[in-house]
């Protein structure tokens, strides 16, 4: 039997198989009823791939991420990370959260980045080296002793990225990390992320509702349908060379995605209208 090295067989890093997720409604006229947020979600991300999950607001993109991160179990179906069923949060999957409520506001930039290493009892000299390198990689030198509330929004997202990079996870899960930033800062952060990803080659799940962002960053873009019972509508490969710019191919892909997503946005808006009128 020919020996096949483990590297040759490229097992997907993340696999979501027929995942469902339901919630109990906590308010409203149908309180206590089950709400199906995700229905039959299936996709996989291979090692080193930059995978974007694109969808209208409120469709359950974050729920998918939270299931992979291990914060939330699927109601049915399976979520596998490197072939193993996800049961709890783990160090192999780092999360960059939406907004900055996940930063430790009582710790300085340096201490935030150091947190994971300190919890794992990494020896001090090594810790110092890794922290300095992570801070340099995201360009936060000179702000080591600032607290998060003394940083700008863009810097805080960089700090979140530095904090997870210091831990060297195999998989990065990013939940609309640049959603709250102004257009200019977002553009810079997208370039920076491409640069960091090129040098570190992590597997990335990147959640966004911005079509251009997904096309600038992703190797593949998965489009989600509007909730309830959201699922993956289509997965598109983005065969564009990096660094990416807006060109003919880019525009063609954008049109394609736009057409696919427009139906979903309209659908979700109609649902909001329905909900409003039925609530009255």
């Amino acid at each position: 039997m020919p020996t096949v090295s483990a590297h040759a067989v490229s097992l997907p890093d993340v696999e979501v198989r027929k995942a469902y997720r339901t919630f109990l409604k906590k308010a409203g006229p149908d309180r206590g009823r089950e709400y199906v947020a995700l229905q039959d979600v299936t996709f996989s991300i291979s090692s080193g791939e930059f995978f974007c999950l694109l969808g209208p607001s409120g469709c359950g993109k974050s729920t998918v991420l939270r299931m992979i991160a291990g914060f939330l179990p699927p109601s049915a179906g399976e979520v596998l990370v490197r072939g193993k069923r996800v049961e709890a949060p783990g160090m192999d999957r780092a999360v960059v959260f939406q907004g900055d409520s996940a930063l430790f506001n009582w710790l300085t930039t340096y201490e935030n980045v150091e947190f994971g290493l300190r919890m794992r009892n990494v020896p001090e000299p090594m810790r110092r080296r890794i922290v300095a390198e992570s801070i340099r990689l995201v360009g936060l030198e000179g702000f080591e002793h600032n607290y998060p509330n003394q940083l700008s929004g863009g810097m805080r997202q960089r700090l979140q990225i530095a904090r997870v990079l210091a831990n060297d996870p195999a998989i990065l899960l990013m939940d609309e990390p640049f959603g709250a930033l102004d257009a200019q800062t977002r553009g810079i952060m997208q370039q920076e992320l491409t640069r960091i990803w090129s040098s570190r080659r992590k597997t990335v799940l990147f959640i966004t509702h911005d079509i251009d962002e997904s096309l600038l960053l992703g190797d593949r873009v998965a489009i989600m349908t509007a909730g309830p019972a959201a699922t993956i509508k289509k997965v598109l490969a983005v065969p564009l060379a990096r660094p990416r710019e807006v060109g003919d191919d880019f525009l063609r892909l954008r049109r394609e995605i736009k057409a696919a997503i427009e139906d979903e946005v309209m659908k979700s808006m109609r649902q909001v209208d329905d909900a409003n009128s039925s609530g009255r």
Partner: protein
Amino acid sequence: MTQTALAVERQRGAWWQATWKSEGVRRIAIFVLSLSCAVLLWTLLAWWVGKPAFLPSPEKTLDGALELISSGDLQNHVLASFTRILIGFVIGTAIGIPLGLAMGSSQFIRAFMDPYVEFFRFIPPIAFVTLAVIWFGLGETSKIVLIVYTTLFMVAINTMIGVLGVEPDKGFAALCLGATKRQVFLHVTIPAVIPNIVTGMKIAMGNSFMTVVSAEMVAAKSGVGFLIYNSRLFLLTEWIFVGIITLGLMGFLTDRALRIAATTLLSRYEVRI
């Protein structure tokens, strides 16, 4: 006027303007003005009433204060009240923080404690004064127990509210970074809750003053509350005034001390009180 004299004059004007514009100087000036107004009003009122046993003048009150200070009585009363507050406050905080953390972290403990919290919330410590005397006697214990009770309650509830308010994403982030559940509690929950604990302590300090004074009025041989209540027997109204002003100053000073301690020692936790 010569040129130089004019220049000096102009400079002096500038100095005045600069001084007045400085925030600190202005605050102190307004403070002095506010205090002078009160003393003036008080003097006029006392003169108009004309009965020192009913409303002693500021001057007479000052005499009373000096009398009490020179005999050493005032210092002893202040020390007695402060000691009770401090001992009760420290013990109450030491029990209240872990209790609040437990209530915030465990649904079971929270549900178990809930009826007691909801019940005792409406019973002021003053209501327990007589009971405390029956159970713990006229000595120090009864007063300290009451302060422990009021402090413990305030600190525990505020701590619990703090724990319930910690963003879940902070804990998730720590778990993703390799922290154990125990580490999340020690290194995320507790630091995140420190501002709430300090708020609870601050409220508890105010309540401790009320409690100690009422307890000392009912059953004590020392303390500022005793001074105020006992002075009525001799119709020494100025001593009552001395006691009340002393209480105000004691409260002001402890509050300042607590604030300075919290903002310097705990500045990284964004304690705002």
